């Protein structure tokens, strides 16, 4: 779950991490607007500054105008419905600080840079030496010598203040099951370090043990935007594409392989839809609902190879869908693996041919789609 800046800052405040004084303002409730201030669009995507989503104002008239202008914006498809209005800071330096994890190195990772305030990916591309990356053993936690290394790299003098700051970030990262805590910029002011921005993403897999937190944050997002946030959970990945062969698979690897084979054989997939390797008739059914909503589809290709996944259950889902939704669409089902005899029998008895060889299945699905055009 991605958090808005104001939500991340509330977590910062709770954790004792300094933030600017600020107020949340929405279209319906603008009474808390103040000036001089920074008026900032609350959106989940990045790059709002360049798109006019952050304005500095010196008086109330400017503040009202800035609020009007930002509240009418749509940033990367996201309508702005809330603003964070914050006191202006006396900024001496701008750092970058983040903690996340490096999946390939299997460890949490701190990243700091003295070149904060800008697009960090651009810094990483052009001046990688300006980013310090420090892996952290999660069982040891963040150690003093690593904190010193970060402070030295940034050239920050008050080591004690910096250590307390980093320890609070680490604690928040661990205790809230965050996968990303990013502060860009982390500013140096006359009063010390202040988190001027916040980007936090929580681990959806931790929902069961962070229920109260997720519920509070989710309700907040709903209240402000009028829309449910991104939902975690669900095992279906659905990516719409340009072609006319509807594709469903029960594994990302075979799904991608099938995508390649479809193209190699002269066809184009209408989508990439993958259900995960341990699924159920209900998931199969909803995958069919989702994929077949696309009316450009001229043939359907279901590629199943069961390990944990049971083929009798997959057949059950497919047959239930087509008994609820009569259709003339050519359906090609490649089905093998766990409980394949039972699955094949169910499909065959219902009048659907079952394929064992993937190439033959793909080639037929591509041919049927071409014939249907």
């Amino acid at each position, binding site marked *: 779950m991605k958090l808005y800046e104001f939500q991340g800052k509330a977590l910062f405040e709770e954790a004792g991490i300094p933030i600017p004084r600020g107020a949340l303002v929405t279209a319906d409730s603008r009474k808390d607007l103040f000036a001089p201030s920074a008026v900032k669009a609350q959106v989940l995507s990045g790059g709002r500054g360049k798109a006019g989503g952050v304005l500095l104002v010196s008086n109330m008239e400017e503040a009202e105008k800035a609020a009007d202008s930002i509240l009418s914006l749509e940033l990367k498809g996201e309508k702005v419905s809330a603003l964070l209005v914050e006191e202006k800071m006396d900024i001496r330096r701008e750092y970058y600080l983040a903690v996340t*994890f490096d999946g390939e190195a299997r460890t949490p990772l701190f990243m700091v840079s003295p070149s904060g305030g800008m697009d960090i990916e651009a810094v990483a591309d052009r001046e990688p030496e300006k980013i310090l990356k420090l892996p952290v053993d999660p069982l040891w936690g963040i150690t003093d010598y690593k904190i010193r290394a970060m402070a030295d790299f940034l050239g920050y003098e008050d080591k004690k203040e910096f250590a307390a700051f980093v320890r609070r970030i680490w604690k928040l990262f661990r205790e809230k099951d965050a996968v990303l805590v990013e502060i860009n910029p982390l500013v140096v002011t006359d009063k010390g370090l202040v988190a001027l921005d916040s980007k936090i993403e929580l681990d959806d897999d931790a929902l069961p043990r962070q229920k109260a937190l997720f519920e509070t944050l989710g309700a907040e997002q709903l209240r402000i935007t009028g829309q449910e946030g991104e939902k975690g959970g669900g095992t279906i990945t659905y990516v719409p594409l340009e072609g006319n062969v509807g594709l469903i698979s029960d*594994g990302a690897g075979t799904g991608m*392989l099938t995508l390649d084979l479809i193209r190699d054989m002269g066809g184009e997939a209408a989508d990439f839809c993958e259900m995960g390797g341990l699924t159920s008739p209900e998931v199969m059914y909803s995958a069919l609902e989702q994929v077949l909503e696309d009316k450009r589809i001229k043939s359907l290709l279901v590629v199943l190879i069961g390990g944990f996944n049971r083929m009798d259950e997959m057949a059950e889902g497919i047959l239930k869908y087509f008994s609820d939704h009569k259709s003339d669409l050519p359906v090609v089902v490649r089905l093998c693996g766990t409980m394949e005899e039972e699955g094949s029998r169910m499909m065959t008895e219902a009048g659907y041919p079952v394929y064992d060889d993937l190439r033959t299945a793909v080639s037929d699905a591509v041919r049927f789609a071409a014939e249907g055009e």
Partner: protein
Amino acid sequence: MAILVNENTRVIVQGITGKSGILQTKSLLEYGTSVVAGVTPGKRGNSVEGVPVFDSVVQAMERCTPNAAISFVPPMFAKDAAMEAMEVGIELLVLTMEGIPKHDVLDILAYAEGRNIRVIGPGTAGVISPGKCKLGAHPSRMFIPGKVGVVSKSGALSYEVGKTLTDAGIGQSTVVALGGGPIWGMNQRDAVELFNDDPETEIIVLLGEIGGGTEIAAAEFIAKAVKKPVVSLIVGRSAPEGKSLGHAGAIIRGNKGTAASKIEALERAGVHVALSPAQVVDIIRKLG
């Protein structure tokens, strides 16, 4: 020989009394895997498919001396179960479940790394050494004993290529799936190294996908240290940029993680690159 699992592997099933645990224990036993015990807290004295169930790994260790574990423990309890198995002396741990909180996965892998314990997964289909031992979900008929070692990130793709090899009469020494999550234990390079040292493996098949850089790391290792022929298939050549295709890592960002960049690195390392499972078979036939 083979790698990771063989006829001497003695397995405990953690979470043996759950739905997946029961079903998979049956399938492991049918394959001939030596499942010596199961563990579910509070279920001591029961048995599943004739396998005795204990409350703790310690009890199972005292009586049955297992050396490997496969876990079907629900995600919220998976870390505790994994830590228990590792502390008691399990050397190989297969974590099948998806959805384990990421901080828990990080803890498990950090603990394992400090003790040289091998962790496969999480979110993995596991490993099979055909004819000897299956510690995962691989459909039995798709694998026969032989000399080709296969490593794959994706479980389903490891079945697919296993099936294609088997249909062509080409057997495998071991087939291992690493898991599709954003953080995982054993990687391609580790598996390639084990295959390289395994006398029974003559040809290595490396199955990869778009996104991330672990195939590139494996390619660098192959160029440096691997003498055996390596055949590779990278899936997702036709994937659109910027879209995540199911696996957490399977996304193309800019020029990073594209199939083309991986294929180039592999070819530079002397790897034979196939574009489909059928081509993997063709190349192996030519090699062999």
